[in-house]
């Protein structure tokens, strides 16, 4: 039996698939968030140096990891859309951008909340904080460019080019910021070399998986809205039961 590999690259077929898949990612995400945060807040022991304040790490680190990966995935989808002219890839890219920006914001916010008790300041110009801020700027640029172009095809292509240029620049920016930081100020407080407790690792890993599932669920449900919006004039959308009523 021949398998049609490209069946789900058409928005009309993917719409249904995404709708079926979303709960399969959303519910495990909610469950794992609950489990991971329970372990983080109640099972993991108090840290010897940072006492209770360190517990924000269980949100901070997964959010930072996600914000970086999502930019690359978004740029990858955007590039696919630009090169192979697959509409769905471009839609996926624009569906992921707000989630990525959200994670970047959460990462900055929790970083500031963590910095106050640890470093005594809401914000320090630490290399990692600064690069995260620039990453947020890149996300916002992508979203703003897409929002200001009315023709969706041009918006997809233009923002794809921007995402590709951005992802080429990300390592350059990262290393420049790091070098700038070491030039300007002495070593900021770093995580001490103490090995992490097993419960801490479990909690962080569980929340990380939950964040991934959440990002996928959000991406799928947002891409459904984008599909509906862009294909509003097609026959298959008009025949959908949820549109008809």
């Amino acid at each position, binding site marked *: 039996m021949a398998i049609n590999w490209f069946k789900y690259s058409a928005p009309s077929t993917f719409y249904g698939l995404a709708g079926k898949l979303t709960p399969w990612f959303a519910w495990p995400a909610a469950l794992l968030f609950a489990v991971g945060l329970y372990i983080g807040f109640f099972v993991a022991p108090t840290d010897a140096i940072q006492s209770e304040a360190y517990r924000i790490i269980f949100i901070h680190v997964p959010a930072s990891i996600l914000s970086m990966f999502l930019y690359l995935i978004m740029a990858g989808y955007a590039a696919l859309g630009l090169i192979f002219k697959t509409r769905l890839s471009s839609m996926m890219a624009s569906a992921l951008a707000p989630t990525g920006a959200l994670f970047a914001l959460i990462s900055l916010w929790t970083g500031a909340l963590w910095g106050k008790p640890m470093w005594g300041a809401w914000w320090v110009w630490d290399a990692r904080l600064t690069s995260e801020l620039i990453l947020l700027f890149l996300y916002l640029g992508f979203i703003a460019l897409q929002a*200001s172009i009315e023709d969706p095809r041009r918006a997809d292509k*233009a923002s794809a*080019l921007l995402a590709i240029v951005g992802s080429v620049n990300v390592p350059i920016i990262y290393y420049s910021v790091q070098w700038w930081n070491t030039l300007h100020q002495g070593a900021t407080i770093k995580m001490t070399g103490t090995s992490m407790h097993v419960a801490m690792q479990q909690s962080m890993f569980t929340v990380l998986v939950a964040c991934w599932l959440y990002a996928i669920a959000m991406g799928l449900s947002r891409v459904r809205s984008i599909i509906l919006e862009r294909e509003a004039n097609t026959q298959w959308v008009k025949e959908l039961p949820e549109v008809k009523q």
Partner: protein
Amino acid sequence: MSRLSVFGLLGLVIKRDLLLAMRRRADVLTTLIFFVMVVSLFPLGVGPEPDMLRKMAGGVLWVAALLSSMLSLPRMFSADHIDGTLEQMMLAPQSLTVMVLGKIVAHWMLSGLPLVLIAPVLGLQFDMPADAIGILMLALLLGTPVLSMIGAVGAALTLGLRGGGVLVSLLVLPLTIPVLIFGAGAVEAVSGGMDAASNLSLLGAFLLFALVFSPFVAAQALRISME
């Protein structure tokens, strides 16, 4: 019609843009005046202590250069877009990449080069030592073309959009951060008694990297915007 060589085409585009700019000198002067003004505002904002001014001069001049180069970006393609010249350029059998490079060079000569030339005067306002001023000029000479090149991509992407001026800054400024870091770093290294060679080398590397890729990417962006 005789065939144009690549350099002939490049020269033609540069000459045309320069000629057009000379007919409307006010545009060029506005950018320059903006640069001088922004730099002069800083001492008013932070106070006139010479020690502090000397310390922040490099950074202030670089940030002002960044802002004033953003100011002139929307003009890079918009006039040609409005009167239809850009369409003719894209239909021409010659390479669009080379023509875009020509426009970038012309844009730099009109918006970047004046900043390099006026920078020593502003440096004196901030009581910078002579060797730091020399390095500042060299760093600006290497860095401002990169600003025009990255900016060209942003200008091409936002061609003809409403609110394009603010949008282009939003897109381009984060990408210019490495230039800012190493440009200001070169000046600071000299003031701190260190060698600025590493910073200048990196700026040179950015220049070459941008020179290879940005005209092509900007040409692609123009094709997307003109479809």
